[in-house]
C-alpha cells in the first residue's frame, strides 16, 4: 500500500509542478497578483508530496518489502539497518527521488525565507524551481519509477554492491546532491533576473547564502567520496580523475568561481553578466554530471547500473534546461549594464584572475573527461586520457590560484597597491620561503623540488591568512583586549574567508606531502614477523576468521610500536559477500597528525612445512594525508561561518527602512 501512496504522491507533485512552473511566470508578466501568489503554496505542496513519496520509499527499504522491484534488486534482509537506509539512494531510482526531495526542500526554503524579495522576483524564482522539479519528476515517473511492484515477490533481495556498503559512502550522495541541487537556487535566481532584466547588488546578496550553502555541501560531499576511495579501494590513493569524480569536481570549480564573482556584484556592482553566466553554468555542470553518471556514456567505477534509455531522457532535459537558459542569457545579458570600473591591480582584478583560472581549470577537467568521446565522434580514433593528462594540465593552472587569494584579500577595491600588500605580508612570505628552502635542501630529485614548492604554497596560504586576520584586529599593535574586541566585531564573512583560504593551505600541504613522500613496504609476513616503515615497527599477529552480518572474511592484526612503545593496532580485513559473490578489502588505518599508517592484506600463502600460513602485507606510511580532509572540512566550516554573517541574518536592507548603520559600513567581503 505504501508504495502506491508514494507513487501517487509523485504524480500529484508532478501535476502541481506544472502549475508552479507556469502560473507565477504568467502572473509576473501580466501583473496579476493572484497568479503570482500561487508560487508559495505550490512550493509548499510540492515539498509535502515529494516528502510523502520519499518516506514511502524509505519505509519499503526499512521493512524489506521485496514486492517493490527496486527494494528486491538493491536490498537484503541481512543488511545492517544503516545500509538499508542508505540503500534508498544507493541505486538510480532512489537517488533520483532523493534529488527531487532536496529540490523540493530548497524550494520550500526559498518560499519561506524569501519575504524580503520583490514579489515578482520571488515568484519567478519559485516558478523556475517548479520547472526543474517538473523535468525531474517526469524523468522519474516515465523512466525510473522506484515504486514498481514485482509479482510474485522474491523471498530475498539481491543486496547492495558490497563496495558501496560503507558509512562514508552512505552520506556521500546526500551531500553531493545538497550541493548540486543547492546550485539550482542560484540558477533560478539567475534566470529570474534575466527575465526581469535587472541584476543589482541586492540580487547578489540574496543569492549569496544559497550559493555558499550549496558550495559547503558539495565540498563535504566530494571530501567524503575521496575519503571513501582512500580507505575502501585499498591502495592508498584518494583521487583518481575518474569521470564520476570529475563530474562532481567541475561544478565545484565553477561554483567556487561563482562564489567569488558574486562578491564583486554585491560590493561593486560589476561583473554582472559574467556572474549570471557562472550561475547558469554551475547548475548546468551539475546536470551534466548527473547525465554522465546516469547514461553510462562513460565507463567508471560508479556506473554500476546505467541505462542508455534514460540517457536520452536526461539529454532532452539538458537541452531544455541548459540550452534554454543559455539562449535566454544570450538574448538578455547584453542589456545588463556594467557598474563600477576598476584597475587590473585591485581586489576586483584578483577576483577576476581567480575566476579565469578556476573556469579554465573546470574547462580542462571537462575536456579531459569528454575528450575520448569527442575525438571518437569526429573520427579521430579512440584514445583515453588518464591521470597523467590531468596532472600535467590542471595542477599547473592551480598554482596561481593558490598564490593569489592571500594577496587578493588584502588589496583595496578599485585600485590596489601590490607593493604595500606584499610589504604587510613579509612575515608570511619569509615563512613560506623558509619552508621551501628547508624542504628543498633535502631534495634528491626534481619531484622533491616540486614538492618543496607545494610546501611553500601551503605555508604561504596558512600564514598569509593568519597575517590578514591579525592585521584586521591590530594584533601586536595595541593592547590585547583591544584586539579581542576587534576580533569579536570582525565580520563573520571576513573570518570565514580567512579560514577557508588557510584550510586550502592545509589541504595543499596534505596533498604535497602524501604524494611526494609516501613510503611503502610490501612483504610476505608470517605471524610474529616485524615490518618497519618510517620509524614504526609493525608486528604481524596472525589473522582470525570473522563473520559479519552479511559477509565472512579474515581480519589481520598488526601491533604498532614506536621507540619501543605500543601506540596502536591495525586490523585490515578481507571480506567476502556471498549474496553479491564479491570480495572487498578493508584497509587498516591508524591516523596520526604526521601521517597515516595504512595496511592491506593481500594473498594468503600456505606454508606446507609448518602448516601455518603467511600473508602478503602491504604497509604504507602516507605523510600528512589526513590534512587533505581536515582542510576540506575546515574549508566548508569557513563557508558556514561566512553564512552566519550579519548581513545574511538581517537580510538585504529594504528601501523603505533606513539601512542599519553598522551594516552599511561593512566594506569587506
Amino acid at each position, binding site marked *: 500500500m505504501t508504495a502506491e501512496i508514494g507513487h501517487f504522491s509523485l504524480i500529484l507533485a508532478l501535476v502541481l509542478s506544472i502549475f508552479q512552473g507556469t502560473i507565477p511566470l504568467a502572473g509576473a508578466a501580466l501583473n496579476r497578483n493572484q497568479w503570482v501568489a500561487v508560487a508559495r503554496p505550490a512550493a509548499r505542496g510540492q515539498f509535502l508530496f515529494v516528502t510523502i513519496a520519499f518516506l514511502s520509499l524509505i519505509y519499503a527499504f526499512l521493512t524489506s518489502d521485496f514486492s517493490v522491484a527496486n527494494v528486491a534488486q538493491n536490498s537484503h534482509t541481512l543488511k545492517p539497518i544503516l545500509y538499508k537506509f542508505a540503500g534508498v539512494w544507493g541505486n538510480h531510482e532512489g537517488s533520483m527521488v532523493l534529488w527531487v526531495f532536496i529540490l523540493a526542500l530548497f524550494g520550500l526554503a526559498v518560499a519561506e525565507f524569501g519575504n524580503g524579495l520583490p514579489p515578482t522576483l520571488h515568484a519567478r524564482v519559485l516558478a523556475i524551481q517548479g520547472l526543474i522539479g517538473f523535468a525531474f519528476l517526469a524523468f522519474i515517473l516515465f523512466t525510473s519509477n522506484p515504486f514498481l511492484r514485482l509479482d510474485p515477490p522474491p523471498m530475498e533481495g539481491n543486496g547492495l554492491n558490497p*563496495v558501496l556498503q560503507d558509512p562514508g559512502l552512505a552520506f556521500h550522495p546526500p551531500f553531493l546532491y545538497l550541493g548540486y541541487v543547492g546550485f539550482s537556487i542560484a540558477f533560478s535566481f539567475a534566470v529570474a533576473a534575466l527575465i526581469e532584466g535587472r541584476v543589482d547588488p541586492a540580487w547578489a546578496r540574496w543569492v549569496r547564502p544559497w550559493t555558499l550553502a550549496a558550495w559547503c555541501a558539495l565540498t563535504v560531499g566530494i571530501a567524503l567520496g575521496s575519503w571513501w*576511495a582512500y580507505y575502501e*579501494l*585499498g*591502495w592508498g*590513493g584518494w583521487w*583518481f580523475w*575518474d569521470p564520476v569524480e570529475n563530474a562532481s569536481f567541475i561544478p565545484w570549480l565553477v561554483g567556487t568561481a561563482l562564489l567569488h564573482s558574486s562578491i564583486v556584484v554585491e560590493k561593486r556592482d560589476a561583473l554582472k*553578466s559574467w556572474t549570471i*553566466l557562472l550561475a547558469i*553554468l554551475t547548475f*548546468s555542470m551539475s546536470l551534466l554530471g548527473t*547525465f554522465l553518471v546516469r*547514461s*553510462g*556514456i*562513460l*565507463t*567508471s*567505477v560508479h*556506473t*554500476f547500473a*546505467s541505462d*542508455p*534509455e534514460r*540517457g*536520452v531522457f536526461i*539529454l532532452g532535459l*539538458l*537541452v531544455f534546461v*541548459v*540550452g534554454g537558459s*543559455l*539562449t535566454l*542569457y*544570450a*538574448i538578455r545579458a*547584453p542589456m545588463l549594464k556594467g557598474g563600477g570600473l576598476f584597475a587590473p591591480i585591485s581586489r576586483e582584478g584578483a577576483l577576476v584572475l581567480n575566476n579565469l583560472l578556476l573556469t579554465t581549470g573546470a574547462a580542462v577537467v571537462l575536456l579531459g573527461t*569528454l575528450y*575520448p*568521446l*569527442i575525438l571518437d*565522434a569526429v573520427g579521430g*580514433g*579512440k584514445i*583515453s586520457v*588518464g*591521470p*597523467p593528462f590531468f596532472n600535467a594540465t590542471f595542477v599547473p593552472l592551480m598554482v596561481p590560484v593558490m598564490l593569489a587569494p592571500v594577496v587578493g584579500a588584502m588589496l583595496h577595491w578599485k585600485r590596489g597597491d601590490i607593493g604595500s600588500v606584499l610589504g604587510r605580508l613579509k612575515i608570511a612570505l619569509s615563512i613560506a620561503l623558509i619552508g621551501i628552502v628547508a624542504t628543498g635542501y633535502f631534495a634528491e630529485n626534481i619531484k622533491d623540488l616540486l614538492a618543496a614548492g607545494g610546501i611553500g604554497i601551503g605555508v604561504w596560504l596558512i600564514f598569509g591568512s593568519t597575517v590578514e586576520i591579525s592585521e584586521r584586529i591590530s594584533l601586536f599593535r595595541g593592547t590585547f583586549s583591544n584586539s579581542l574586541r576587534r576580533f569579536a566585531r570582525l565580520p563573520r564573512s571576513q573570518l570565514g574567508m580567512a579560514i577557508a583560504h588557510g584550510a586550502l593551505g592545509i589541504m595543499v600541504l596534505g596533498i604535497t606531502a602524501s604524494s611526494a613522500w609516501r613510503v*611503502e613496504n*610490501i612483504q610476505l609476513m608470517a605471524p610474529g614477523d616485524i615490518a618497519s616503515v618510517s620509524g614504526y615497527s609493525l608486528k604481524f599477529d596472525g589473522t582470525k576468521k570473522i563473520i559479519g552480518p552479511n559477509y565472512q572474511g579474515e581480519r589481520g592484526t598488526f601491533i604498532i610500536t614506536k621507540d619501543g612503545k605500543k601506540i596502536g593496532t591495525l586490523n585490515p580485513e578481507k571480506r567476502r559477500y556471498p549474496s*553479491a*559473490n*564479491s*570480495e572487498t578489502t578493508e584497509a587498516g588505518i591508524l591516523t596520526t597528525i604526521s601521517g597515516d599508517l595504512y595496511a*592491506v592484506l*593481500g*594473498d594468503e600463502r600456505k606454508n606446507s612445512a609448518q602448516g601455518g600460513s603467511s600473508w*602478503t602485507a*602491504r604497509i604504507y606510511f602516507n605523510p600528512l594525508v589526513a590534512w587533505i580532509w581536515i582542510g576540506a572540512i575546515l574549508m566548508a566550516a569557513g563557508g558556514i561561518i561566512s553564512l552566519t554573517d550579519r548581513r545574511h541574518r538581517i537580510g538585504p536592507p529594504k528601501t523603505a527602512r533606513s539601512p542599519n548603520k553598522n551594516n552599511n559600513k561593512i566594506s569587506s567581503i
Partner: protein
Amino acid sequence: MKGNFRLTYFIPVIIILTILAIFWSYLSKIKDGKSIQDLPSALINKPTPVFKLPGISVGDKGFDSRELTGKVTLVNIWASWCPPCHVEHPRHMQLASEGIPIYGINYKDKPEAAKNFLNNLGNPYRAIGADRTGKVAIDWGVYGYPETFVVDAKGQIRYRHVGPIMEDDLTNKIRPLIKALKTK
C-alpha cells in the same frame, strides 16, 4: 533591445549544444541495438594486433601476441590507477581459477603500482605485457579502462567488452561465448 543583440553572448549556448549533440549521436548509436559495452570494434573477426611487450619489471616474462593461438583466451587491458579494474578483478580471479587463460596488458602504469595491485588482489594472468607508452592499446582500439577481448583459437578477436566485467556479463555473454568457441 535589438541594438543590444550581440553574437559573442551566444558562444556558451553554442558550445554546450555542440557537446550535447555529440552525446546524442552516441546515445542514438547505443539505441540502435548496440550497448555501450560492445562499442563497435573494427577488429571483430580480425586477427589480434601483433606485438611483443616486456614484462612489468625487469626479468618478468613479457607478453607476445603469438601466445594467443591454439586456445580460446581473454585479453584484459587494465591499470592499477583505474578503479573499475579493481571492481572487475574478482571475476578475473574466478575465471583464472577455472582454467580459462587470461592475458593482461598493463596500460601506462608505474611498475611498482602494478606490482602492488597484483600482490594485493592476486594475479589472474598467464602473462602480462607492460604497455608503458600505450601504443599497443591504440592498436587494440581501446576506448576506456578496463576493456576485455575474447580471442578464439585462431587468434581472431570475437568479442569486445568495454568497462568492468560484472557477474551478469559473465553469465550472459562471456561464458556462453567461450563455450561456443571451444566446441567449434
